[in-house]
């Protein structure tokens, strides 16, 4: 890698990472493609550079660092907690900007004090950017997947609807669509008379019927969805279509999603919202408050951090905090908590994880202005 291509502040950045007690980690530029496609979905396929090994394995040029760093951590089995710092080139097909650019960041793996680890990640990103771009206003926006999940659960919707809503958190167009569906009466699902009769019977009969049909039609019962799984979801679906969100619940959900305020006011406002709505938001609120205080203890001005309730990322491994630091609407740093990622990637035990990455090309532009 030609060092002269690196952003001129790379050295400063690596010093920052070292001063914050992180261990430098590097990962191969050529990565197996499957983990990225599995985690982020097929949509990523047209945004990465794919190639194939001689044996047919799908490979790609490193599109980001989080997954490679996590995989390397699992491979090295160095134990936790560990904080890694990285800086290197990533490769993506973009409509605007170069296809290869630098990213740097910190991944904090295995720290069980969730609130303080969260606060440290936000503070590290904000401070590093403030040092790199001194004297300019940076916008810090924060959201929390766990708070949204707690609100949805407290509303008492059937499990299937909860899953749909939680899964689409962060994809606001899709979420709005779901809320509209929930608000309007459902068309009755067209169950055939035989199926209605089967549903009226006990679970065992339904499962046996599905199993028999699978055997008759040559569908193996173990490779894909099992008769038990299909039967269970069929019952769940019945309750889904019969559900209609009553007006007040819908209004509450909409009200929650529209919340936007300085983080300094957010804990009180969320508690007030929960009280007024009669919802018990439990540990999600406790963590939220603890994180906010931890950020304050680290010296962050919470009046200058925006909490936006609808801010999230529609990827199923994000579990709590999400945040962005931007300037003039250009996102310079993005981060969040991804407690589910490590086990999805093959770790044997749950490893809490939080981190952020810095877009060095955008930082370079922001510094030049």
């Amino acid at each position, binding site marked *: 890698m030609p060092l002269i291509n690196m952003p001129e502040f790379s050295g400063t950045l690596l010093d920052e990472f070292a001063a914050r007690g992180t261990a430098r980690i590097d990962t191969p530029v050529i990565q197996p493609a499957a983990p990225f*496609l599995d985690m982020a979905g*097929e*949509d990523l396929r047209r945004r990465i550079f794919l190639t194939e090994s001689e044996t047919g394995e799908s490979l790609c040029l490193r599109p980001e660092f989080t997954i490679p760093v996590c995989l390397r951590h699992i491979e090295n089995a160095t134990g936790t907690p560990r904080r890694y710092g990285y800086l290197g080139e990533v490769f993506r097909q973009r409509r605007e900007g170069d296809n290869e650019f630098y990213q740097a960041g910190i991944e904090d793996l295995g720290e069980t004090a969730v609130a303080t680890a969260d606060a440290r990640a936000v503070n590290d990103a904000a401070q590093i950017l403030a040092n790199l771009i001194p004297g300019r206003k940076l916008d810090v926006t924060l959201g929390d997947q766990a708070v949204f999940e707690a609100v949805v659960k407290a509303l008492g919707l059937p499990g299937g609807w909860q899953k749909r809503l939680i899964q689409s958190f962060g994809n606001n167009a899709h979420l709005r669509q779901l809320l509209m569906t929930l608000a309007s009466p459902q068309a009755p699902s067209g169950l055939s008379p035989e199926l209605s009769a089967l549903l009226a019977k006990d679970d065992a009969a339904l499962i046996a019927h599905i199993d028999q049909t*699978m055997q008759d039609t040559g569908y193996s019962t173990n490779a894909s*969805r099992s008769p038990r799984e*299909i039967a269970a979801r*069929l019952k769940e679906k019945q309750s889904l279509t019969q559900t209609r969100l009553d007006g007040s619940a819908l209004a509450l959900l909409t009200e929650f999603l529209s919340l936007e305020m300085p983080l300094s006011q957010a804990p009180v406002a969320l508690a007030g919202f929960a009280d007024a709505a009669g919802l018990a938001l439990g540990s999600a609120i406790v963590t939220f408050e603890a994180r906010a205080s931890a950020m304050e203890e680290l010296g962050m001005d919470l009046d200058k951090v925006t909490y936006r309730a609808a801010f999230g990322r529609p990827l*199923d491994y994000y579990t709590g905090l999400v945040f962005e630091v931007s300037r003039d609407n250009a996102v310079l740093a993005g981060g969040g908590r991804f407690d589910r990622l490590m086990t999805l990637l093959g770790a044997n035990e749950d490893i809490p994880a939080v981190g952020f990455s810095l877009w060095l090309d955008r930082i370079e532009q922001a510094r030049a202005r």
Partner: protein
Amino acid sequence: MSIITIALPSKGRMKEDASAIFERAGLPIVAVGNERSYRGKVEGHDDIEIAFLSASEIAREIGAGTVDFGVTGEDLIREGLIDADAKMEIAARLGFGHADVVVAVPEIWLDVDTMADLGDVAADFRARHGRRLQIATKYWRLTQQHFSSQHGIQLYRIVESLGATEGAPAAGQADIIVDITSTGSTLKANHLKILSDGVILKSEACLVRARKSEHETDARVKKIVEAVRSAL
């Protein structure tokens, strides 16, 4: 005067049906040299050249602008070209080669009738089976557009399938398919059903024009389009 190139399917029903329409349009096509030649011309029009190509190559050549017109399925155009509408114009729908690109799941998935149902199943799949929901298809682009952009479904993997796609779910190579169907009989024979909102594209053979600036001042281009339209 420059030569106008029209790419036509090189074999099968598509070739015959396309030739018949051009014949009715007063543009009878004859092969250059012997019957099996891949080059042809239009009788009485020395300035029109016919290139016989495979249907998917026609989509590619239209995208690259190396031919002026092509006859091919809309599915292949939309699958083969990024920003298809910026690169080509559908000048006429020809009324043959009807086929729908559809999302089909095993009939026995009694709980799955819509894309929303499929989204639920996909969201849970990894937790239940240790892998993502797998879709067998040769339509990567159309599948991604339909699943991601239209229905917000991200969590699936595409398994490339270049033939006999309908057999993939029963064979255990994939869970569901995105494929082309004209009568639905092959799907039925393989115990698959189309989702109620699972029709991605209603495709048929089209006369497609590559968007080229020189066409704007070329009266022959307009004439060819009008002749073909009048033959429908």
